[in-house]
């Protein structure tokens, strides 16, 4: 391990560690605008420069590895002036509208300018031109604000392996964006929004639908209902300065009531419903394969994550039959709110306005898919991100931390712990196993605390196997069958898994895929900036929420039982087929 000094302090770190990382171990936070832990260090922004004794020029500390005997200075006059000059130059090009910019409260460039005591921009340079690209339902790009840090390029190309964004052209004319400077809707973008989650400035943000929601709330003729995704309760607090991993379910419900939503419901309800439908779909496929020895598409892939759906449509159209036909919980909710619930309250589908709060940009895109109109009108009218809800609550002057703990409204508000864990990578699989195991064996899933440890945690690809023992007579043909499952989060990991399945290197019965690393808790629409440490805290919070519930298996949800008894009939029945299931279409990648 090389020994060196940073600002006079002795440091010993493993070979290959960057100076930037080494400095953090002794409490020196070298600023950077481009580096992303575990993803990307390319020395693009030059803000992280430090002085290395004996070296002629300043070194970019994010890419310079430590060496034995190095003497590094991070706060000499030369370093201070260089960093300041870099930020001044970035600001001279930055076509910002800081007072009204979406990132006004969390812009990394603005914060750094402040921190480095930049008071004027002495260079009257040409501004980056760009124009606004709002061609897609979920994202807005403003290239004039882009500082070319290339975080989005790395996250889109390497983490998600989508590659919609790439540096185009050259020199000052460089634009980070789709092919030849085209709009985003001209290339294969899955709308995961991980680019917006890592952008240090306001160059990529969500397309805001806040005004549409206010308009609906003000419209006396509309009954406005809101549904909240599981992951939001573990992250919304961060919008108000609460620690990552703070559960705010009750406060969130109270705040939504104060925003004057007519009913506050839970996407968890349709998450439980998804488990019933998707679990039966899996059992149906297993029956065909094991009992009838028929041809059937296995493994079955989950279909909750709309970025993943678009990814399959673009990149693996031949694999579409493997996707579960279940709609995502968001869309199941919309279709049921405008049929089942509408009938209960004596309203017509067109008089109900469904808002969803999601950790996600792809949900905006999904809600606008033309086939998502099974209630007769658009099933989900608006999907907001967690960040947008945070903003609405602030705009309304609601003191979030002082909200009382309230509960969801009933009929589509009850949920079990199995629904909560939809937020985490591995959660849908665990929830499905809790129910499917019990259907097949009549007994509880034989794991401590109902958790399946190999499926928990932030690893990108996970596997588990359970051998069915003691099947009830109806499912006796599954006796002794080893059910193999796999879980992947992040589309790059999904791709690796799909390729293994395609080549025959691995085989599974059921595979859960979440578009974003870590699952929905790491969604593109979550409060910025999501690091692995923050992912871990949100993940643990979600498991706490699950463990705190009396009911932890989807089939125990009383409101789910009620909807089957009163409205849907049986799982995979005709009504379900019409309202809760969907189909997919291949899309051209180029």
């Amino acid at each position, binding site marked *: 391990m090389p020994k060196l000094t940073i600002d006079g302090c002795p440091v010993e770190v493993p070979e290959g560690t960057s100076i930037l990382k080494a400095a953090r171990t002794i409490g020196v936070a070298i600023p950077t605008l481009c580096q992303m832990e575990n993803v990307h260090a390319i020395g693009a922004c030059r803000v992280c420069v430090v002085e290395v004794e004996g070296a002629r020029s300043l070194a970019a500390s994010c890419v310079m590895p430590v060496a034995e005997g190095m003497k590094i200075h991070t706060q000499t006059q030369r370093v201070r002036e260089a960093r300041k000059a870099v930020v001044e130059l970035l600001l001279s090009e930055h076509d910002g509208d800081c007072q009204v910019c979406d990132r006004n409260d969390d812009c990394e460039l603005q914060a750094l300018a402040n921190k480095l005591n930049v008071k004027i921009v002495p260079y009257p340079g040409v501004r980056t031109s760009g124009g606004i690209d709002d061609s897609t339902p979920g994202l807005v790009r403003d290239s004039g604000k882009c500082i070319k840090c290339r975080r989005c390029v790395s996250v889109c*190309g390497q983490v998600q392996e*989508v*590659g*919609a*964004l*790439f*540096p*185009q*052209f*050259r020199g000052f004319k460089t634009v980070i*964006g*789709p*092919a*030849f400077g085209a709009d985003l809707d001209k*290339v*294969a973008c899955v709308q995961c929004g991980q680019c917006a989650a890592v952008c240090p400035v306001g160059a990529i943000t969500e397309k805001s639908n806040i005004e549409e929601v206010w308009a609906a709330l003000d419209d006396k003729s509309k009954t406005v209902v809101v549904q909240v995704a599981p992951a939001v309760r573990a992250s919304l607090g961060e919008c108000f300065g609460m620690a990552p991993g703070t559960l705010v379910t009750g406060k969130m419900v109270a705040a939504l009531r104060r925003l004057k939503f007519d009913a506050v419901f839970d996407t968890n309800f349709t998450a439980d419903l998804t488990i019933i439908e998707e679990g039966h779909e899996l059992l149906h496929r297993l029956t065909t394969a094991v009992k009838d020895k028929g041809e059937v598409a296995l493994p079955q892939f989950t279909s909750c994550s709309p970025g993943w759906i678009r990814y399959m449509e673009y990149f693996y159209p031949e694999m579409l039959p493997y996707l579960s036909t279940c709609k995502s919980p968001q869309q199941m909710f919309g279709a049921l709110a405008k049929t089942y619930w509408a009938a209960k309250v004596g309203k017509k589908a067109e008089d109900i306005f469904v808002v969803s709060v999601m950790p996600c940009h792809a949900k905006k895109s999904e809600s606008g898919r033309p086939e998502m109109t099974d209630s007769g009108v658009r099933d989900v009218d608006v999907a907001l991100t967690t960040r947008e809800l945070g903003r609405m609550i602030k705009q309304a002057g609601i003191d979030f931390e002082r909200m009382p703990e309230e509960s969801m409204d009933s009929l589509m508000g009850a949920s079990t712990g199995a629904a909560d864990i939809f937020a985490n990578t591995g959660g849908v699989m665990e929830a499905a196993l809790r129910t499917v195991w019990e259907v097949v064996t009549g007994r509880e899933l034989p794991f401590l605390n109902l958790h399946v440890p190999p499926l928990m945690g932030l690893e990108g690809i996970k596997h588990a196997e359970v051998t069915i023992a003691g099947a009830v007579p109806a499912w006796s043909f599954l006796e002794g069958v080893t059910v193999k499952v796999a879980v992947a989060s992040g589309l790059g990991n999904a791709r690796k898994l799909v390729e293994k399945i395609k080549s025959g290197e691995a085989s599974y019965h059921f595979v859960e895929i979440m578009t974003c690393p870590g699952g929905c808790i790491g969604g593109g629409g979550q409060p910025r900036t999501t690091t692995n440490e923050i992912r871990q805290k949100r993940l643990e919070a979600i498991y706490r929420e699950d463990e705190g519930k009396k009911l932890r298996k989807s089939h125990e949800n009383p409101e789910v039982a009620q909807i089957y008894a009163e409205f849907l009939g049986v799982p995979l029945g005709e009504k379900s087929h019409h309202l809760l299931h969907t189909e997919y279409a291949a899309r051209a*990648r*180029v």
Partner: protein
Amino acid sequence: MGWRGGEHRGNRTMTEPACKCNCQQDVDEAKCLKRLDVVIREYRDKPGALIPVLQMAQGIFGYLPESALKKISLGLDKSYSEVAGVVGFYSFFSTVPRGKNLIRVCLGTACYVRGGMQVLEAIRKNLGIDVGQTTPDRQFSLEVARCFGACGLAPAITINDDVHQRVKSAKVHEIINSYRKKSKSTVAKKKVKA
């Protein structure tokens, strides 16, 4: 097959001969796409294949039409935005059809200080086109480049694969005329250097 720097200096590659179809006529795109398939198959699994394949595609088509770029994107499993990013970065690549003869004027430091701009100006006047344009008879396209690595010959220009050294503005018309004649007299034999 290697593709180290220097082997692909010309507008075509060493391994892929130019399109047989004469660019004075319409390029038979389908035929060219078929030839591109062969190239992609050969390079598919080689690391760093994108640039050589783009070079060969430009050799086949004379430029890089959208249909070729999309085929390369799918064939090499590179996103279309990445393929476009590489094409847009290098001035060598063109997404618009070029003339039969490509004139590149070096404006690297040495050529610049030894009169490269004046040479460029003379060529522009002679052909009546601007940088990046093609003459209406599709005989000549004009581009600028930064340093051919022939600084000792400054100011230098290239026409197709030929390097012309110590070019004087007054001699420009002679050089260009020799290619005009060549084009006419050897039209049947000459390989197209788009």
